[in-house]
Structures are given as C-alpha cells and as structure tokens.
C-alpha cells in the first residue's frame, strides 16, 4: 500500500499531524505548499526527511509531525463521504471474521473506505477484497483513492446495489461484511459468494436493534449458524494529577480563620465604633463568595486540585503540616461514544466431508 521506506519521497502520501483534532493526508508534491494555522510549509522541504519527523513551519507559527499512513491514521484523517467505521469495530470484526494474510473478503458498502483500508492492510497482497458501493459518486471517489494508495491490486471495487443484484463472485470468499440499511436482502447473495469447503463467516453492521432482529431471522433462515451479536467500544481515559489534601491542615486553617475574625470583632467592640453592624456580615459574605469562586475555578481547570484559603496561613507553618498525597489517576473521558453499531455475526459450516476424504498434508 503506502511507502515502507525510511524517508519521505516525492509522490508519497503522508499524514500531517497538527493536533489530535487536525490530522490530514497530504500527497507530497514538490512545488506545492501547505498553509495552515500552524504555519507555512513547502512540500519540497518534507522530501528526504525520515517518517515521524517533527517539522517546524517556515514562518515560525508552529510545527507538524509527518507520519507514515496506517489504516488507523487514515481513519482519523480521511475525507468523510458517509459515517465511518472506527478502530474498535474494525478490529473486532477483523478478528471475529478471522481475516488475515491471504483472506478473500467481501464488503458492502464501501462508504468512506475506512474499513477497506484496514482489511487491505491485513490480508496483504496475497489476499483480495471485493468492495461494493451502490452510490456512484462515492464509488468513483473510492476507486480513485484505492488507486492512489496502491491498493488497486488488492481491492476490486464495483458500483452495484448488492441487495438487488447480488455479488460478482461465487464460492470464493472467506468472509462477508455487510454495512447496509437492509442487510437481510443481501444475505442469500452472501451465502452464494462464500466458500463451501471451509468454515466461513459473515458480519452485519446495524445501528438499530430492529435491524438486528430482522438480520438474525434472515441469517437463520439462510442456514447460518452460531448467530451471535456484539457491541464493542473504545473508552478513552483521561489522566489527572490528584492531590488529597490533609484534613488536619483544613482544621488548623479554620481555627485560625475563626480566631482572626473573633479578634477583629473583640477589637471592634473595644473600640465601640459605629461601623459595627456590617463587619461580621461582610466577612461572611466574602467567605462564601470566595468558596464559590474557588469551586468554579476548580471546575474549569481540574476538579481534583482543591485548596482551602491560603491567605490565612503563615507560610512558615506549612512545613510542619502533613503534605498532600499526590496521585496520578485516570478516568473515562466524559464524551465517550456510547454506541456505534450492533455487530451481528454468524458462521456458515462447511459441507461435511465424505468418509473417504484423504488425509491432507
């Protein structure tokens, strides 16, 4: 597929990593420039540098990392033509369907090609992928892309409505992957396309439960067995630095705070001044305000780092205080994708051999 050389060459497709949210493919075309918020770069400057290099912009506005494409990076960088499959689903489907070097695979539809790239990588040049897309413009774009990425030998792309017209191969493939709105219409076609001499497998990708129920029923009717269904997700974790404050310190601070306020009050009483009435209340209000502000700040920055007012503690004293417990901790990120699709799997059992089958070696 992509270049496996150490260094970037003209004509290579590279991945330009600017931030986690900005990962873009780039076809190295000396003479062209790359202009982004993170600076200005010339393609020519990237030729000859090793893959994985950090490159500063010509105008000092930032930097990029120049990476070698992988199907996983491609999934993060690709132009979306449809909703796409992500790592967790792709990896799990590949594993359940036992897709590996040399496998023959069908996928329908091609969509944005996220799954296609991963499968092409995994089956290698001795495997083959038949990919079907019913949307003509998308099919054409995908075909261009596969060709540009050196996958033309591995992938055969067909513009076709497989639910109506079936697949282009028979008794040929080890695995079928259906990402269609109505996969049940393609299941009999899939059965035809699968090999009959060894165990073969199918996966249907459906976001809704009602589609699953209909798919299960169709798979069962077509003689598929071991029908099972999975959901898988990748839960990214955030790392935080947590410090558990010692309580004794808070107790001391509060005692001092109260004493200070009491001293002030006594002082005022002694002076018998006119401004008596408001002082206590002011102190109260200030304090409540301070507390709320702190809570908000810690909310905005990091909930785990919390402080009680430092103003009232003599700096000299803190050395005697127990120090906070520091921990490096993690939790699942708040915005986890909660569902992608249901993955319905089934097997097609090979025809039983006759008793006279010779022992193969």
């Amino acid at each position, binding site marked *: 597929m992509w270049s496996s050389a150490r260094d970037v060459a003209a004509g290579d497709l590279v991945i330009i*990593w600017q*931030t*986690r*949210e*900005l990962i*873009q493919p*780039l076809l190295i075309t000396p003479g*062209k420039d*790359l202009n982004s918020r*993170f*600076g200005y770069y010339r*393609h*020519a*400057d990237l030729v000859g540098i090793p*893959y*994985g290099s*950090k490159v500063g*912009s010509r105008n000092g506005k930032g930097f990029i*990392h120049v990476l070698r494409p992988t199907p996983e990076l491609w999934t*993060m960088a690709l132009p979306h033509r449809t*909703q796409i499959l992500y790592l*967790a689903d*792709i990896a*799990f489907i590949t594993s*359940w369907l036992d897709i*590996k*070097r*040399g496998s023959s695979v069908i996928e329908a539809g091609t969509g944005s090609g996220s799954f296609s790239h991963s499968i092409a*990588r*995994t*089956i*290698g040049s*001795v495997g083959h992928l038949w990919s079907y897309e019913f949307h003509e413009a998308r099919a054409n774009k995908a075909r261009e892309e596969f060709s540009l990425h*050196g996958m033309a030998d591995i992938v055969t792309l067909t513009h076709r409505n497989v639910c109506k017209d079936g697949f282009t191969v028979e008794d040929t493939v080890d695995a079928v992957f259906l990402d269609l709105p109505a996969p049940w219409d393609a299941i009999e076609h899939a059965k035809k396309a699968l090999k009959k001499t060894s*165990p073969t497998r199918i996966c249907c990708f459906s976001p809704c*439960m009602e589609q*699953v129920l209909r798919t299960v029923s169709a798979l*069962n009717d077509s003689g598929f*067995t071991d*029908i099972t*269904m*999975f*959901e*898988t*997700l*990748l*839960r*990214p*974790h955030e*790392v935080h630095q947590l410090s558990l404050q010692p309580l004794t310190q808070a107790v001391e601070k509060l005692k001092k705070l109260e004493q200070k306020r009491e001293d002030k009050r006594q002082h005022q009483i002694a002076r018998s001044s006119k401004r008596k009435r408001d002082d206590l209340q002011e102190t109260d209000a200030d304090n409540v305000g301070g507390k709320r502000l702190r809570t908000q700040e810690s909310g905005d920055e990091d909930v785990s780092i919390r402080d009680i007012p430092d103003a009232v503690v003599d700096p000299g004293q803190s050395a005697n205080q127990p120090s906070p417990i520091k921990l490096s*901790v*993690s939790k*699942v990120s708040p915005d986890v*994708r909660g569902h992608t699709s249901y993955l319905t799997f089934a*097997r097609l059992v090979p025809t*039983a*051999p006759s008793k006279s089958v010779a*022992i*193969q*070696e």
Partner: protein
Amino acid sequence: MDIADHEDATSALNSFKATTIQSGHTVLLRLPSGETKGFKVEKDATISIGRVGSFRANELIGHPYGLTYEIRGKELTVQPPHTLQEVEETDATNELINDGEFVQPLTLGEIEGLKKSGVHASDIIKAQIEQHANYSLKTEYSKEKYKQRKEAKYSKTFSTVEPTIYNVCDHWFKKDQNRIRDIRPDTLSQILNLANVRPGGRYIVVDEASGLLVSAILERLGGEGRLISICDVDSPPAYPVMTLMNFRKDVVTNIHSSLNWATAQEDYTPAVAQESSPEVGKSERHRIRLDKRKNAADTLLNAREELFAGEFDALLIASDYDPLEILQNLILYVAGSGSIVVQSPFSQPLTELQSKLRLDPGYLAPSITESWLRRYQVLPGRTHPTMSTSGSGGFLLHAIKVYDDPNASKVSSHRQSKRQKKEADEGNLTVPQTLESYQTTELEEKNAAVADQASLTNEMEPTG
C-alpha cells in the same frame, strides 16, 4: 502493497497453517456445556471427553474445522448445523406452578438405564418432559430454558473449533484470564491494529501473556515478516497459547526469533559469542553438539544484530516490568512513525507511564484506552445482553514514535537542497486538495497547547 516477491509469499502462506485437522494438532472442542477444551489429535489414538464419550482421533483427521459431531459408540456422525427455533408464546404462565414443587419424574437410575440402552439424548429429555407434572403449565420461555439445561446434560455431541486467534484467545480468556493478562479478544484485536501488524511487517514484542501476543502476531504475519520477542528467562519459553494455534514449526522458526533481557543489551556479550577455541578432532557426538551450539550462537547473534539494526514497525508490550524501563531499552529500535502499544490489566501503570511520556517529545499523543465489549443472546423473542460478562479486558496505551526537533516550535528549521528550494519558490501557494476541508475547520488553540493536553481527547475516535 509494497511486497516484492508475490510467489514466495503465496507459498509461505500455503504452508503456514493446515486448513483441516491433522495428526499432531491440538484441537479445541466445544462441549455440550458450551465450554471449549483442548485435545491432542494423534493418529490411531482415542480421544476421551469425559461423560460426553470417546472416539478414535482418525475420525477427525482430514476434516475441516467447525463441524458438529455426535458420538455413537466410538464412531462420529456429522450433525447438521443447529438453527434457532422460534419460541411460540402460549397463554400459559408460571402462575400456577408452586415453587419447589418442580419434581423430576425420572430417577437418576432410570436415566442411566436409558442412556446405557442407547436411547438418544433428545428422547430422554422428551420422556422427562412428558412425565413432568407441571410442564404444560410453564411458559414457553421456561420450557426452553429447561430443555436447554437438560440437553447440555445428556447430549453426546461436540463441535471442533477452528484455531483462529479469536477462538484461541476466547478459550484462554474463559479458562484463565490471569494467564493472558486479561487480554480479551476485542482488546487483542485492537492491539494488532494499533500496532499496524501486517504481512511483511517487522515487530518487537514483550509477551508475558503466555504467548498470546506472539501467537497473534505470527498469525497476522502469515509466514511473511519478522518478529523478535524478548523474554525474562534465558531460553525462549514454551508458550501454552501457541500450542493451540497449530502453526507449522518450520515457518515459525523462519520468522520468529527470541532474545532475553540480557542478550537484548547492546553492551553485553553473550557467553556463546565468547567461544573461540575450535576444539577440533573430538568425537562425532561432540561435533554434533558443537554444531548445535554453533547454530544456536548464530541464531542468537543474528537476532541481536537484527534488533540493534532497528527500524521495526512497532513495539508491543504486555509485561509486569516497569513499562518505562522497557521503552527506554527498546524505543531506539522502533522506526520513526512506528507504533508503541503497551497493555496492562490495570489502568494505574499506564497512567503513570502516560504522565511521563507526554513530557517526552519522542512520543506523539500517548493515550490510554479501555476496551468495552458486550455480547448478546439473539434467540428469537429473547434478545438481551448475556447475563454474565467479563469485567475487564485490560487497558492499552498507544503512542507514535517521532523524532523531535527542539527548535521546531520556536523557529523554522529545514533541511533544504538548492534544487528543492528552487522548486518551492516556483510552486504556487494553493492548498492541496486533500486539505481543503481544513480551511473551514475552526480551531481554538495552537497545536503546541493542544498537544500538551493530549490525554484529554479521544484520539482514536474523532467525532465525525
């Protein structure tokens, strides 16, 4: 694909793994209970699977994997595949059945008698059901449950399970997940994809997961590529997981080498390499031994040379040693833009590691993920997630090895030949087509700042 020799690759593929059951294979059998167990298939031997029965191994040899058999005497009959049966709901409820009064009408002795007289399991169940006082009062759901329970108990059928890496991992995970460090099939599949494991690739692995990672990488290489594993014992360990994969040993030997933490040190000279005296004129036996020793020494020295030459596609780690130390030892040998994947049954060691790696400009975007998996029962009318699932499938840290340029963030720094400079000056300033979507992207922070907050965002799953 950039693989050169198409013919070689094909022949390696064909010989990597037999597609049918062979004498010498260790085969997983799925028993009526749903459990899988490994059995050694040896020509002319008898395989005994507890109360399910026993049969001659030859009955399986040459068959494709994945068939279901019934044991009748010592013979096997291939069974048609089992399909789901629709459960019809009737008006019956459990309303009138008194708890605790669910009497079993056949005594154990009676059942044993029926079994010995060769009555078929399904007939025993039927007999039990017919004599079951309350059976007709039960709902169809309860009946189905009851039938399944009985079937698991009396059935004399089993299936052969194809030694796919999924099945083998699943088998071990259910059998003893501690021994494979909680690596569930979904987590394993993510490790392989994150590390970009592909035919022809070159990988370094630290596998303290009973050989699960070694097996999975070898399976993915399919006979083409290189794997160096580094272990903490002086000789390569026997990996229990690999036994079930039934790889051809000669192909594995070609693509897999093993070093240990001592021989993987550049500044260490292994004892075998110290050998200098030719010791000629000894006995035949002695010479054979010397040859063997010479071969072992060559293999070791070659593996060291290969490791130290570096440029590996990825480094995969599943180990109880401090992962930071492991990286400090091996990161040198990973190619630029190569992947690092570290697995742990606990998040904590990866949390510590991530908080160090994010300060190291040699690692791009170190991020921690946990895999989540849920399996469903899909019997018609009774679809629901399975009642018991594995709690944890372990945690992964993924990062990309990069070459830092300390000046890059401050000033521009470029290697530029005159020719390139000329081209660049002539080039127009149009943004390449593949970047057109970028123009409309609203970014709120400079990349330097964003990169610092690396762990706070979901790397692998951008919303889109």
